[in-house]
């Protein structure tokens, strides 16, 4: 039998991790919902965000001003995303290119390999860590690392801002329109190419924000984005491809399943629990928890 306090600690630990997972996944699902393509290099934008955060703190802003580094890292990664979208992805969306999705897949996988190797060449295979953002805190029965607490709160804040931005602003409504019908928004006079630019930039900036917030927790190294990639794709399938609330709920669910499975079953199969959940969802509800059945005319 497990102590109820311990179970409560495991649940809380899972929810904290889940909120962070959700932030990693929202960018992927957002880009997919607008551009109808999957960005396989999201993990590398997470990694870029963590390096930017580290160097901004250690070289420019100092550890006390870590909170200024997060938006700067987000903006820089977002700008890089816009440039990449403009140079490498936009040409596929301008012409009537056949098999556009396949080209996008190849380009983003190539970007992923490129950025990861670039990090190894530039900074070596070593782990770096900025100082913790905050002193350890007690979240109910759970003693929590200050940086993890900041990442948790930061994730909730960014997800809320993002959700409000999508639901309450004109630009957000335009994005929702593009997610529903790309041709439809063009007939309403909206510049779809510009929306794609912005969507890609915002999506990768969200991944970079997760990397920046988690830099002292997951450490800064060339491979740190692989977790974001794997978990992100698990979450978007569980939550429903293109559904932002689905990504948030699926992130929390995945964190919870992993945390409880780790301690109640075996830690050696931590990833298996997430994949078991994924398979169960694919069998019972293939369109995901919050996804919708595709209608083919």
């Amino acid at each position, binding site marked *: 039998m497990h102590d109820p306090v311990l179970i409560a600690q495991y649940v809380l630990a899972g929810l904290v991790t889940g909120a962070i997972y959700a932030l990693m996944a929202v960018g992927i699902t957002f880009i997919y919902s607008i551009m109808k393509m999957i960005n396989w290099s999201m993990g590398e934008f997470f990694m870029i965000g963590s390096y930017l955060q580290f160097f901004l703190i250690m070289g420019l802003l100092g550890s006390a001003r870590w909170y200024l580094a997060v938006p700067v890292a987000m903006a820089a990664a977002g700008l890089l995303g816009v440039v990449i979208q403009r140079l490498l992805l936009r040409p596929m969306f301008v012409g009537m290119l056949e098999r556009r999705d396949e080209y996008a897949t190849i380009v983003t996988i190539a970007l992923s390999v490129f950025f990861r190797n670039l990090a190894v060449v530039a900074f070596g295979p*070593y782990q770096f860590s900025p100082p913790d953002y905050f002193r350890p805190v007690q979240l109910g029965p759970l003693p929590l690392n200050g940086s993890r607490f900041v990442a948790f709160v930061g994730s909730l804040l960014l997800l809320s801002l993002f959700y409000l931005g999508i639901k309450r602003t004109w630009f957000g409504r335009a994005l929702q329109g593009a997610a529903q019908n790309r041709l439809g928004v063009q007939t309403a006079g909206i510049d779809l190419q510009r929306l794609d630019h912005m969507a890609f930039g915002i999506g990768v900036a969200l991944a970079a924000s997760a990397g920046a917030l988690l830099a002292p927790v*997951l*450490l800064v190294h060339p*491979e*740190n984005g692989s977790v974001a990639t794997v978990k992100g794709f698990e979450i978007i399938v569980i939550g429903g491809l293109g559904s932002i609330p689905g990504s948030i709920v699926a992130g929390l669910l995945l964190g919870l399943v992993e945390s409880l499975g780790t301690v109640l079953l075996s*830690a*050696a199969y931590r990833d298996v629990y997430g994949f078991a959940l994924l398979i169960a969802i694919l069998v019972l509800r293939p369109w995901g928890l919050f996804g919708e059945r595709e209608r083919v005319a």
Partner: protein
Amino acid sequence: MTVIVEDDAGTPEKGLAGFRKLATRDRVVAVIGQFHSSVMLAVQPLAEELKIPFFSTQASAAAITSRHLLYTFRTHAIDPDRARAWLDFIQRFGFKKVAIIGENTDYGVGLIEETKRLVSVQKLPIQLDTLIFDRGTTDFTPLLLKIKAGRPDLVINVGVGTPAYLIIKQAYDIGLFPAVPMLGSYDFPIRPEFWQNLGPVGNYFAFISYYHPAMPLTDLGKWFKERYEARYKEPAVYSAFNAFGQIAIIAQAINKACSTEGSALVQALETGKYLNWNGTVTFPRGEGPYWHQASPPLLILQYTAVNQSYGDATILWPPKMRTGTLKKP
């Protein structure tokens, strides 16, 4: 001799590709440098097929040499050496309840299994609580909470690279370490990254090491130490000593064999005595994992001040080299 470098990135497939390139395109006479047991185990059959002597520089799974392969050699500690070292340390320091948290790799599982086997065979009065985690794990909090609830006297951290650091950080956050001493399974704290990444959190961490400046060196070792320190402006580290030593051994074997051909080198290595950085080594066809195996001495060090150099760390074990006692805050 010319050194040609390929990066295995810690993955078997890249290790295989790199080895094949070195052997077939660069036509190297021997390959050294393996760090990950999983990569070493995957590449060994290729070394046999291509008849290239293959040296483990820091891969320590017993299975590597237990396979009794003709072209595999090792001058690094193996699981039984490491498990024996920490079991002796545990007994001498009076720990009764020990938690081991290890990754699900050949290295982690091998070490845990060997420790359990030795405790059982020797009927040691030690209660072991072993936990195996997935190598991709980044959140150890639930596991560490479980360990803390078990009230161990000592935690052995068998993570490699990022997991090793994350375990220390997250154990500190939940109040497990340094209240409960923690022992690292290898010498990663000797690198400057240890203090850069952990800061004060790393203080009181104990770890297995294979070198300490108090240890005697051969003339070869002294020659290398001097040049390494002049060039890199940092104390020479074991991985560099061991890689250099293996190249020196290969050079001596080429001289002895008067050939660079693989089978001639194997014969020379099996029958000769070779000067290494820390002594003379041989590669006999020994029993079990001691086939073509030359184990270095092991030490257990503990940091007792933030930003301490590993040369100033307290030597806790072996008893004949001990310079202090285990400290807690």
